[in-house]
């Protein structure tokens, strides 16, 4: 039995304009009618416009951090929360360790070189250069290095 335009309009309201969503048994009738009837094609075009209008007004994206908020409200830590807290901007502890290490190494080198009489001056020069290099590398270290930057270039540590 052939499908009428009225039946077609009803089926469009039930199943939408996408033929893939239509029951297989009526799909062939739909195609046949659209091939024959201008009115059916117009109905289909309007149904497509309706579906397009609906698709264009689907849900906008969720607010930023919604999933994280839900997890937090459930008391579940997200991977970001499990990371160690960010280091404060003015925390230069690792640099202090680096400077301390450099100074200790310089000290050890100075003592070792000091054991060689003729080379004692060289040791002083190397130590002075080492301290100055460190101070130039990071202006923020000047305060730490105050003791080491005596005018004689040897540093008060020694």
């Amino acid at each position: 039995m052939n499908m009428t335009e009225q039946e077609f309009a009803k089926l469009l309201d039930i199943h939408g304009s996408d033929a893939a969503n239509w029951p297989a048994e009526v799909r062939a009738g739909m195609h046949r009618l659209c091939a024959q009837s201008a009115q059916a094609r117009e109905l289909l075009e309007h149904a497509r416009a309706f579906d397009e209008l609906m698709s264009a007004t689907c849900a906008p994206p969720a607010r930023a951090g919604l999933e994280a908020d839900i997890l937090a409200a459930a008391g579940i830590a997200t991977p970001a929360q499990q990371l160690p807290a960010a280091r404060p901007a003015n925390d230069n502890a690792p640099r202090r360790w680096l400077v301390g290490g450099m100074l200790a190494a310089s000290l050890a080198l100075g003592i070792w070189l000091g054991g060689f009489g003729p080379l004692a001056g060289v040791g002083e020069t190397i130590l002075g250069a080492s301290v100055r290099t460190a101070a130039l590398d990071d202006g923020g270290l000047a305060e730490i290095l105050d003791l080491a930057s005596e005018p004689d270039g040897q540093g008060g540590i020694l």
Partner: protein
Amino acid sequence: MPPLPDEDLMEAIAQADGKAFAALLSRHVEKVRAIGWRMLGSRADADDLAQDVFLRIWKNPAAYDRKKGRFSTWLYRVAANACIDRLRRRAPEPLDERMAEALAAHGPGPERALLEAEQSAQVRAAIAQLPQRQKLALVLSHDLGHTNIEIARIMDTSVEAVESLLGRARRKLKGLLSEQMKALVNGKGAEK
């Protein structure tokens, strides 16, 4: 390794497994929001609904019984019921507020954004006039792509009833949005 089915994740959630909950949330949050968006009409409400529904699941996972059916069927039913509860509690919003919300959702932009926001507000205002069950059938069919058989399961009704709901919903909306549809059809005609 294939992802765990929802029903297995729910069993893990019953053992307070936070990772399982995060996986389930990520998988379904947008679908719950889609229901909230169409039923409640605002992005903020859709987000709140998602939060409310998923926290209920986390706090009381035993409410879901896998012997009674698929998790997603149960979830959409819970989401729809939560929407209906909210709608019962609140007064309808004026169209101006929906416009403002639509504009906010699209963000600031050129004239096109304004037109889209206006169109979105008109569609939402039209959908707001539908009875709740018609709205739900429409979102499940159009936005979430469920078959009428699946919708019947979610809504705990017959396929014939779903077809009737969808038929009436689309017919009513086509009447309310006929101008916008004509503009779309004519716009395409002009492009050809």
